[in-house]
């Protein structure tokens, strides 16, 4: 997970220091002035960090004090570690830690509702901003908290900005409200540069959590149980006793995204000015911010990183060159080929999905389709990919940007609530099945969606998938009308989408299923045939590189790489 790293420091006029400064500040971006948060602005904050810490203890700038205020029970804190150099055990490095909390404080649920992000070093865990010892001096804390009343995430940062470097002060750094509407320029230097939709981000959300300490990639030098010659000195720090694998953070982030998705969908429905309740007329509810909600279906608003299921490449150049190669053959991740999580449903991400079983374990059942260790070594070597300027691959094989759980969960929630039909979703995906992320074709179709329309909640799952419900759905009708009015050219993306939506002779889900079957036969056939296998693998690996580049070059998504293009994805030199 990343809470945006602020790079540019601007010293503001607010530099008066006193020993116990209870003032809470605000700062929009790294380059903005630091200003005092007004009383009315403070009254709009109601997340666990504000309520338990900042409301009455804005002077809490010692990490131990902050943690004690949030969760006094040290056993109920968990510490997760991420770093693109996590495989390097050399002393003298920094690592990024995420701290989350379990349990409740009174009525306030901590788990999934508040997290901190700090740095530590191999020698010590900085907690005291006044320490004269550099390794012990706390320099910043980044944090977010879920405001359950306003249904939004609030972002904070504790740092020296605005104090002339004299001391650390807390700043409110913005909320998730309307974060999705920000332009790349507006995001720059703000927390929303990384928190694109405003929700917590854990890029490597699902197994095998590349770059994280996890059950699939234990980090010995962080493990207090390892011998002294293996572990870092920092492992004796009490906080390190709470070291936990990323698999547990995954659950907390999934819960956080789920909360956010529900809130976003509710926010997009027409409400009564008098009561604030959703207006229901003749069983129909009106969507008033449709394009914001539907954007997740048409546009890649975020991405997650996945790789071959726990198969280490043994080609990772950190800490030193390694040319061993994978220990065994592996299946290419299904989400490389298509949006398998959403199309199939189920699986570790737990979406309801479209229930098209053919997408699950796509090309992952037949060992003939698996990539053999020597083949993978060849692909990596021939492509001349590098990490940190050194030839080599990521720690795990076939690392790719994939559809985000954020987008998938939004789409899933829209389907479950009835705002879109599964057939509508299938039609959109069918337009460009083989480009699970950053599809220009899909993105070009969003303009046909209405900003307002009405829908009724499906009675049950069967009703949700009912083709007649799809045909009667106002969104379907309005989109068909809009494309018809556009009079698309035959063979165009618009014409294809229109034909699938109308479903002449076959439902959109059936159409998508047939596409998937044909796709698997086509690629599987080329992989199974010795004469075409090597060429096909080279083609597929070329698509891997292409998708990595496209993400890094995207003006919004590229911000999630905080390594300047050196460490997030293996790529050949320009």
């Amino acid at each position: 997970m990343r809470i945006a790293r602020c790079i540019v420091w601007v010293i503001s006029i607010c530099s008066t220091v006193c020993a116990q400064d209870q003032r809470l500040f605000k700062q929009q971006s790294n380059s903005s002035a630091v200003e005092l948060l007004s009383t009315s602005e403070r009254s709009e904050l109601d997340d666990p960090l504000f309520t338990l810490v900042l409301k009455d203890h804005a002077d809490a700038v010692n990490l131990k004090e902050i943690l004690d205020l949030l969760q006094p029970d040290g056993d109920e804190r968990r510490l997760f570690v991420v770093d693109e150099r996590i495989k390097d055990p050399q002393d003298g490095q920094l690592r990024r830690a995420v701290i989350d909390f379990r349990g409740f404080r009174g009525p306030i649920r901590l788990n999934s509702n508040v997290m901190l992000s700090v740095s530590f070093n191999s020698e010590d865990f900085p907690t005291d901003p006044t320490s004269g010892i550099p390794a012990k001096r706390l320099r910043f804390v980044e944090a977010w908290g879920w405001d359950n009343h306003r249904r939004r995430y609030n972002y904070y940062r504790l740092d020296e900005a605005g104090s002339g470097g004299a001391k650390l002060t807390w700043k409110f750094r913005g909320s998730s409200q309307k974060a999705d509407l920000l332009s790349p320029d507006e995001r720059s230097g703000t927390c929303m540069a990384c928190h694109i939709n405003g929700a917590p981000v854990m890029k490597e959300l699902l197994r095998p959590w590349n770059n994280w300490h996890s059950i699939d990639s234990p980090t010995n030098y962080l493990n207090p149980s390892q011998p002294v010659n293996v572990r870092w000195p920092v492992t004796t720090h009490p906080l390190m006793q709470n070291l936990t694998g990323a698999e547990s953070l995954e659950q907390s982030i999934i819960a956080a995204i789920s909360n956010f998705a529900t809130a976003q969908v509710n926010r997009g429905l027409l409400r009564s000015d008098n009561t604030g309740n959703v207006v229901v007329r003749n069983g129909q509810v009106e969507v008033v911010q449709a394009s914001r909600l539907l954007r997740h279906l048409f546009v890649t608003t975020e991405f997650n990183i996945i790789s071959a299921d726990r198969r280490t490449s043994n080609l990772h150049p950190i800490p030193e060159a390694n040319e061993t190669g994978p220990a065994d053959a592996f299946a290419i991740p299904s989400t490389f080929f298509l949006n398998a999580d959403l199309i199939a449903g189920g699986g570790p991400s737990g979406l309801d999905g479209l229930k098209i079983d053919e997408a699950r374990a796509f090309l992952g059942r037949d060992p003939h389709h698996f990539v053999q260790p020597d083949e993978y070594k060849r692909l990596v070597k021939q492509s001349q990919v590098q990490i940190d300027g050194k030839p080599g691959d990521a720690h795990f094989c076939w690392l790719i940007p994939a559809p985000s759980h954020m987008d998938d969960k939004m789409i899933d929630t829209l389907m479950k609530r009835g705002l879109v039909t599964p057939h509508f979703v299938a039609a959109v995906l069918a337009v460009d099945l083989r480009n699970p992320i950053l599809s220009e074709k899909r993105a070009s179709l969003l303009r046909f969606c209405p900003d307002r329309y009405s829908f009724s909640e499906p009675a049950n799952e069967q009703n949700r998938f009912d083709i007649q419900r799809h045909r009667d759905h106002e969104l379907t009708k309005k989109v068909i009308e809009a494309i018809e009015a556009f009079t698309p050219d035959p063979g165009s993306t618009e014409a294809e989408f229109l034909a699938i939506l109308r479903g002449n002779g076959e439902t959109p889900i059936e159409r998508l299923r047939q596409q998937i079957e044909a796709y698997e036969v086509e690629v599987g056939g080329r992989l199974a045939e010795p004469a075409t296998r090597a060429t096909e693998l080279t083609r597929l690996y070329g698509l891997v590189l292409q998708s990595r580049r496209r993400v890094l070059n995207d003006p919004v998504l590229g911000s999630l790489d905080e390594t300047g293009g050196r460490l997030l994805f293996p790529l050949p030199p320009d």
Partner: protein
Amino acid sequence: MFAYTDPIGRGVLATQNALGTYRDLLQGFYEFGAEKPGTRFCLLGNLPTTAKQTTIPWPAFPKTADADDKAIDARRFDFQDEYVEWHIERLRNQIRRITFITELPEYYEALAKVGHGALVAGIVDAIPSASPTPAELYGLDFDPDVATPRERAARFRGRVVVPFDAPAGTVPENPWTNGSKGILCLGQKFNTMGALFNLVRECAFPRSGSSTDTCAAVGGACGPRRNSDPVICTQAQEVCRIPQGLSLSDPAGIRILELAGAWRIDGVEVDINDPDSNQGAWVIDRNGRRGVLDTSRALTLNNDSISSGAQVSRVLQVAADVVSADLAELLDREITVTADRPSRGVII
């Protein structure tokens, strides 16, 4: 022999005079684990009292299942392979209760060896409403009162655990554990005590290369696509490289730890793992071997109503405990081979 404790912790083994039998059975597994030359798997008796215990957690969701949630629920013995299985009770098509279990059948085998009455007492202790008949427990044409202890245990086991070579779709016949009338103990063919010991033993040979690749190097002892096996295997490998000797902690087996996620009852957030505030919605008992989720009230997980056990299994954490100590600290005690070793068929 090490004084292995009752894994369920309710004293039934002792009151039924089955604790000694259970200990003999366990000793066989530990000896199997430790006997292979070169492994750093130890008998518990070889570890000093200062040995360190490590908990190895994993999610209960069976990620190897190429199926949707409903199918994972319905085909327990094909899919639920993470040392966790579950049983769903419904009322008018609505899920009312989900029982997750990690109990291993050896506990009941020990009771069966003592006698039919002891076995029934053990079953009733787990399922208070149970009234198992001899035919249900052993099959027809079997008189438990004249059978030998070994015959009783074998017949019982044969009706609760799917044989390793059984085809997909095979369901054990004992209705008190196959879901017809309840769920008693693990029955999926990979969820066995023997598989657990074999896994730790094979992964406790020091190897070169990444510890996470050990699973791929030990053949059938480790299921590389499961949540549980690679995690246990990696941990065993890490420990033995320190170098330390290791063993499965007493009581050997799998513990239910906790549920993750955001839970609400009637729309109000609750700490589902806190018995004082969860209104009885989630109860872990039998020493962490049984967890019951009561869905009779409006219970939601991450804003979704409960529609399957697989859904809950995604947020259910279970764990095995291993205990380890530096090689120099291991106590040099001779392995005593008992007369009651599990057969290889049982082990694998």
